[in-house]
């Protein structure tokens, strides 16, 4: 992670144009290439950013970040205050709570719940940005990356999208499909997942545990 504190102007040219006038800001360059510009406020939201994959070129005091879609972020440094880099290593990610961890165990033990003939390749399959919960193979031999949550929200779909991006760079694995699994999935998360060709599935924790639900069913 490279952190630059500088007085800078920022211009974004893409689907729209945006300009940030000169001010003291933090420029963050992550190991995966994401570039984000933060002010001293606004919580976690950057003022502007360019996700990876992108290309960063620095010429004198001008940083130019371009994306494959042709978007361009231009950062002009007027005064540099600090420029530090730290090796952060692979992040373990949010620790799963008990139920989530157990759901992962149960699904790893019973991958057929997710699809007929599905078989487990590995739990916590590593990627460059952290491990994905399960990697599974379909009967046709297609790899499926499964992200498991207790409650499925948009953040989880975004997380799985990032994993898929990295997994699909591996010629031995791709094509890798995604599956988002949770005890309940928010409608917006379902829509986003479907939009990104990620399948989703709601699972019943009690049923998986082999405990009969008290709510009896007709069939």
């Amino acid at each position, binding site marked *: 992670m490279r952190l630059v504190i500088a007085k800078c102007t920022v211009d974004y040219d893409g689907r729209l144009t945006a300009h940030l006038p000169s001010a003291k800001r933090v420029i963050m360059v992550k190991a995966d290439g994401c570039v984000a510009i933060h002010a001293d406020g606004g919580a976690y939201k950057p003022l502007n950013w360019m996700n990876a994959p992108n290309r960063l070129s620095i010429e004198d005091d001008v940083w130019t970040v371009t994306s494959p879609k042709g978007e361009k972020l231009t950062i002009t440094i007027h005064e540099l205050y600090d420029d530090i880099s730290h090796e952060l290593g692979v992040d373990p990610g949010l620790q799963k709570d008990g139920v989530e961890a157990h759901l992962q165990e149960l699904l790893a033990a019973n991958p057929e719940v997710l699809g007929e003939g599905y078989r487990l390749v590995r739990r916590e399959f590593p990627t460059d940005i952290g491990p994905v919960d399960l990697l599974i193979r379909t009967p046709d031999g297609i790899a499926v990356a499964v992200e498991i949550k207790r409650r499925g929200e948009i953040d989880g779909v975004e997380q799985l999208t990032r994993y898929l991006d990295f997994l699909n760079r591996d010629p031995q694995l791709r094509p890798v499909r995604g599956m988002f699994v949770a005890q309940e999935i928010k*409608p*917006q998360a*379902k*829509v986003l997942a479907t*939009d990104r060709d990620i399948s989703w*599935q*709601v699972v019943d924790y009690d049923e998986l545990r082999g405990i*009969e639900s*008290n*709510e*009896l*069913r*007709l*069939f």
Partner: protein
Amino acid sequence: MKFRCERADLEKVLGTAGRAVTTRGGALPVLAGIHLELAGDQLQATGTDLDLTITVTAVVGGEEDGTAVLPSKLANDIVRAVPPGKIEVTIEGDEAHISAARSEFSLRVIPADEFPRMAEPPESAVQLDGAAFRDALKQVVKAASSDDSRPILTGVLMAAEGDGLRLVSTDSYRLSVRDLPGTSVLTGDESVLVPSRSLSELSKVLDGDDALTLRLGERDAAFESGDVRVSTRLIEGDFPNYRGLIPDSQPNKLVVNRAELLEAVRRVRLLAQEATPVRMMMKSGGLELVAVTQDVGQAHEAIDATYDGEELTVAFNPEYLLDGLEVTSGDEISLETVDALKPAVLRSSDNPDFLYLLMPVRVS
């Protein structure tokens, strides 16, 4: 395009068509809009999410023909907000101007050529009693599932039954069966599965006693009533074998005033929190309802009822029980049971055309 009309008329047109508009955006932004087509004095408005399409026609004071797509939510909000009276709509290029009294709005329209072309409805048509069909829909739609992971259960089965039509829905916890004797829509063992959402919207737009025309195709169906057409894709797949679920006979029968039981369940339900069921304790002296939520409290209520059978306590999901009581017609209902783990059958004492099967909740 240019036309004038009463605000109330345009509100009805846009509001009705807007019920089919998707609010979730997605790959086709144009689906967030309502397609308008003006020819002479006939205005046609269409909203769709590609599964459900609602088309409304109205007579307006047309001045200039044309087609356009208005953003549904914004257009509806504007029309609802302007004062009652005359409203004028002019659409030129990529802007729509809406004016009423002293209010004027202009908004960007969505390119009309991106709006999907709707298939023509199937030709073969059958007439239905609109009021009877609407009442039947209200009785069955609620029992259908809303879980898209089991799409078959999100549909309402429409099947030939004797000389009439049968509507069936289930979410695997309860089953609604409503017969419409003499309504000849399908024959033999024909059946179709219609998304419950489409039928729910249809029941909302059906007006009074208007006749209803049903056009059934292989993959879609269209319901026409007055100035409104509701078109829906049909669900492919096999509906569960529901007939085997309905018990032939049940040894225990409770007969009780429907309104009294309904109100009592509503009260007792207040203490049935966190998925706690409501227990029905049935014996020859009557009926007692009980709900106990640990660390919160409990509720008891005794109701006069006639009971024939073994003393029995059965627990039910209070929401499912209320749904069944609300849609069962008549002053008196019967609840037939076998034991605490088998489905109970709720019927009206004076209308044999509807039954509601409800699975109990297991309690210790």
